[in-house]
């Protein structure tokens, strides 16, 4: 427990300095002292002929000149294909029959997608996957970040080690986890048997209708929890220590500190991590495809696998364009609502 008046005076002084040294104050201080800026030095070093050419152009046109290549690339790779996909979704186009006559089918594709039981099953599988991976990764990621923030001995080494899974390619991860899940020779069943005493070959993760959805959730959690932990760790590290000290002065318990300080201040970071992981897992393809091929049956056939099969195996380009547009609108809509909520939380 803190001592008498000298300690409190020291604390108060630290608090005051911290408040006064807020970013706005610091910027105001630097603007007073004139220093030849980097821009001015570069301008004086550029050759005459270049300066003469550029001097005719306004600042705005120079700015446009610099971002023009990126804008062109964005239009070509993002915007044009999106508009073309929307156009194709109203036709019967099939990429493997370029010479077939192109007919407009109106909203037929959209109607058949929204009334197709198999597509809804795929969306359900995707939703199950997204929700549970987010829940598990947030809980485990937070716990991991909290532990690392304790700064125990060797925490830097352990932080690096737990980052290894997320550096692997999802396709590679799907591939070798297939072997890990093999009931007879795989490590996973062996470990479960070791811990629980159940014979290793008596259950199988990938081939079972009940366990296969959890198999993919497990692999994704193994791979991406460190990512969530990193983001939350940044949040935890951004909480200034003086707030905890002030709380200790006010005799707040650890639990109260956690609920009133840690959680609210880390919440924007958690929400950001959830947003990133949510968007990523909504379009998850390679890891699931290599692990289960969408099986058994279509139990783990997430929306991307259905889309890939429609687009590049059945070659129903118009139909799959409509499906892609529906998925895009879903993700876009959900992300928009979510970002609004995120902004509200950040402004608190």
């Amino acid at each position, binding site marked *: 427990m803190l001592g008498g008046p000298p300690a409190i005076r020291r604390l108060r002084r630290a608090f005051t300095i911290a408040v006064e040294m807020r970013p706005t104050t610091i910027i105001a201080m630097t603007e007073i002292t004139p220093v030849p800026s980097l821009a001015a030095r570069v301008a004086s070093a550029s050759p005459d002929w270049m300066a003469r050419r550029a001097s005719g152009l306004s600042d705005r046109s120079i700015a446009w000149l610099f971002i023009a290549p990126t804008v062109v690339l964005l239009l070509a790779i993002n915007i044009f294909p999106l508009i073309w996909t929307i156009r194709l979704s109203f036709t019967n186009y099939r990429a493997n*029959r370029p010479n077939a006559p192109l007919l407009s089918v109106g909203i037929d594709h959209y109607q058949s997608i929204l009334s197709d039981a198999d597509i809804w099953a795929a969306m359900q599988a995707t939703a199950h996957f997204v929700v549970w991976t987010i829940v598990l990764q947030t809980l485990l990621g937070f716990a991991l970040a909290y532990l690392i923030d304790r700064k125990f001995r060797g925490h830097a080494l352990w932080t690096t080690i737990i980052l290894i899974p997320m550096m692997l390619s999802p396709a590679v991860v799907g591939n070798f986890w297939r072997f890990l899940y093999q009931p*007879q020779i795989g490590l996973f069943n062996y470990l479960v048997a070791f811990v629980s005493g159940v014979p290793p070959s008596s259950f199988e993760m990938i081939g079972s209708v009940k366990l296969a959805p959890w198999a993919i959730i497990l692999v994704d959690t193994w791979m991406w929890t460190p990512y969530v932990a990193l983001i939350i760790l940044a949040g935890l590290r951004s909480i200034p220590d003086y707030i905890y000290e002030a709380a200790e002065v006010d005799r707040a318990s650890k639990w109260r500190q956690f609920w009133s300080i840690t959680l609210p201040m880390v919440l924007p970071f958690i929400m950001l991590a959830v947003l990133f992981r949510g968007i990523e897992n909504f379009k998850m393809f390679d890891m699931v495809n290599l692990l289960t*091929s969408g*099986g*058994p*049956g279509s139990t783990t056939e997430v929306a991307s696998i259905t889309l890939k099969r429609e687009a590049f195996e059945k070659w129903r380009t118009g139909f799959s364009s409509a499906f892609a547009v529906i998925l895009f609108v879903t993700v876009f809509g959900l992300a928009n609502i979510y970002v609004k909520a995120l902004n509200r939380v950040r402004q608190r």
Partner: protein
Amino acid sequence: MTKHLLGAAALAAVAALVPVAPASAQPKTITLCWAAWDPANALVELSKDFTAKSGVGMKFEFVPWPNFADRMLNELNSKGKLCDLLIGDSQWIGGSAENGHYVKLNDFFAKEGIKMDDFMPATVLGYSEWPKGTPNYWALPAMGDALGWTYRKDWFARPDIQADFKKKYNRDLAVPKTLTELTEIAQFFQGREIDGKKVYGAAIFTERGSEGITMGVSNFLYPYGFKYEDPKKPYSMEGFVNSEGAVKGLEAYKALFKCCTPPGYTDAYMQEGLDAFKSGQVALQMNWFAFFPGLYKDEKVGGEHIGFFVNPPEKERGSQLGGQGMSVVSYSPNKAEALAYIKWFASPDVQKKWWALGGYSAHKAVLNDPGFAATAPFAADFLKAMGEVVDFWAEPSYAQLLLAEQKRVHDYVVADKGTAKEALDSLIKDWQKVFKDDGKK
């Protein structure tokens, strides 16, 4: 900075002036694309003869089976120039013919005196013709194949195992004469201890991603009476795809899967079957005849340990057709050399060498040779199989038809969804929708 720029410009100018070796000075090479498996390695060996005779070099592009269709159909649809020759799957014939991917070979065959009568009729129908049953040829039958079975002959020969089997089933342990007998043999071996290791009954096809489970289940459906359509009314499937026999056949396949396969065998195709058999895990293995030469040569399970048999009948006979034809890709810039390769490959002595190296010739000079059955322990079974092969649809929309069957069958057999009748009824609905979209009803 100006000096640096001038220096760089001078370097670039000098580099541009250096003459590049003219491409015409190098010998021509053509690329042949196929799946990556044992016969492909045999073809590399065989093609050395072509290079020696014609001076045209051969490059090969082999893709593993689960990715073969994806990779090659994408290549064809984007008019890629990777392949001059393509040994494409028999199902691709319809799409490739109608979409202009393959060169029509009728004129070439007529000019070079290559007669389709010299090849086994089932292979001409299955690998070359589109539309089926018409004399329009888009490929040369290159690799004859069908789905057969291998078994552990050495286990069958053990007296204690024979005695146990006789006691349980009241008949001798031998090559099964029907699919029911096959299932009984698999049940007998399931979980048995042999040489201190637990073994299982059968390794069958259950792969979800490409075509595995469809190929496997067909070997049960055909003998039980499944037909793709009314022989008198094309594309009429009701009562043929979901006939009583077909339902029983599908149920029998599921029963075999549930009772008698190794643990974790829910997504297995050719390689997994080979692994299971070669590691001594199973008594029976379903796999393509293409692998039998390699299996026979295997140190652990080959030779005296292995036996082969054709797909047993139940009510009728039927084996799933495999195999491929060799086609010239129409986007190739080396069509003349590619056609020369086909002419060389079609000659009877090359075909004989092809069989000797491990490829399955479809040429009558090889297959009708009186000594053929003695050339390998599986040769006679291969002939028998080719006499009763049935192929999957080869329509241009074959991929949609195949994906529908993959889903319905895997849903029922592995994921325990619904009944066999429901699966086949849904399959008919899926297929009708595809044919309707194609304007074929």
